[in-house]
């Protein structure tokens, strides 16, 4: 974890250095330097900002949770049943590369402008990578482990709990990390309508008001939130996947 913190600090410093140099080189109000942006943070960080962060995190958490609730059983089902895989694989294969944001109008028509359509887009964006990751991980579990459990008389429930679920965890965490990054990215699209709360709205609102300092401040905050989520995921994985590190 300490190593990861060090990587984050180094990355943060390098990005800021690059940003500083580019801002100094271009010298335009469109790209204020990091020192200018950070100098205004005392005005930006207030109760409203936390509400924006909370609204975004709520949508990401809801979307990812639903995607996990669908993706884990479907992925395991596809790995354990040849017939299920034959039926579902073409559906997943076709749907995976479709840009889900293109379905935004459909989601809005079906679920309206509220949180429903926003969460549905996050679900659609992340669920397929979770299905594919879980299915592939489950397919690659050492068959010897299953043989040992089955020959000892293990029930299907115990095989699922003691073997399949722990074995897919590392790949599942990778897909959650990717899903988290993607979800944060599409917040800029889904929080552009029907809401006054969320980091996507915060950045777009500042942009439309030509308040570039607040806009860059929002981008930095969103990046830090993303990094914090990655840390939390790393921490949970560290605890849950001992022996597979």
């Amino acid at each position, binding site marked *: 974890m300490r190593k990861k913190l060090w990587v984050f600090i180094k990355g943060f410093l390098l990005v800021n250095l690059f940003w500083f140099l580019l801002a100094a080189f271009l010298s335009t109000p469109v790209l204020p330097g990091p020192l200018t942006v950070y100098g205004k943070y005392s005005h930006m960080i207030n109760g409203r900002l936390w509400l924006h962060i909370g609204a975004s995190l709520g949508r990401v958490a809801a979307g990812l949770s639903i995607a996990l609730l669908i993706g884990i059983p479907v992925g395991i089902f596809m790995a354990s049943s040849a017939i299920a895989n034959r039926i579902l694989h073409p559906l997943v294969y076709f749907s995976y590369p479709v840009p889900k944001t293109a379905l935004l109008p459909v989601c809005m028509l079906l679920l309206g402008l509220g949180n429903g359509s926003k969460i549905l887009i996050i679900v659609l964006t992340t669920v397929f990578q979770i299905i594919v990751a879980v299915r592939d991980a489950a397919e690659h579990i050492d068959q*010897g482990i299953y043989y*040992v*459990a089955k*020959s*000892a*008389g293990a029930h299907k429930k115990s095989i699922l709990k003691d073997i399949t679920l722990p074995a897919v965890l590392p790949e599942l965490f990778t897909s959650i990390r990717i899903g988290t990054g993607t979800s944060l990215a599409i917040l800029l699209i889904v929080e552009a309508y029907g809401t006054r709360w969320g980091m996507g709205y915060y950045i777009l609102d500042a942009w439309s008001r030509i308040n570039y300092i607040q806009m860059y401040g929002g981008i930095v905050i969103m990046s830090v939130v993303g990094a914090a989520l990655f840390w939390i995921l790393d921490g949970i994985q560290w605890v849950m996947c*001992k*022996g597979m590190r």
Partner: protein
Amino acid sequence: MLELKDISVTYGKGGTHRVIDQMSWQLETGTVLAVAGPSGCGKSTLVHALAGILPYAGSITLDGTGLNPKTCSIGLIPQNYGLLPWKTVKENCLFTAKIRDNTSNMEAQLTSLCKELGIDGLLERYPGTLSGGQAQRVALARAFLMNPELLLMDEPFAALDIAAALAARELFLRVWKEKKPTTIIVTHRVEDALYLAHKIAVMKRGGHFSFLNENPWQGVKSPKEAAYRSLEQQITENIIKADEI
């Protein structure tokens, strides 16, 4: 007595590929049978059928009752040992015993068995950090801790170098003599079969024994006698012949 009557195992759609065809034999309780034979003759298939992993036609009984992993205690050591990477050595050792709810007085048994196998210092480690020989001994401990009525070993020493294999088979025999479960060892090493088994069989394609003989050299280290050489020669010739069929 382990008794197989007209056992057939088929693979493929509609059972098109018959790997074992109406095999019948018996083995006295508390003896070790080594099954040798060319690659692909069905040795592992036989082990999997006995372990209750593969469906078969015919009947298998152990001391008069139908062999079933839910009712009989079957210990299996697959080719790559089937250790769970996310569980510690200790948890791996207790894995099958826990499936069978056979955990009374387990700590004491675990301690003494692991001491005997020389893995008592590894109990908190994970399988990924073990050498091949250590992993093999963990698999042995796991199998013996469930007090198996039938012990099945599929190429247990194949992944070990000569020195580790010699040490492992000696250790196996020492531990085996304490509980004497009926044991079937699939091996392609004739010297392992001669050292470990009371009976040696050579399996030919189609799942029949082309050779089944008592082995008077069980537990004898590198015998120099001509009779040993002759039996070794006989087994080797039968394996070669079985490959030609």
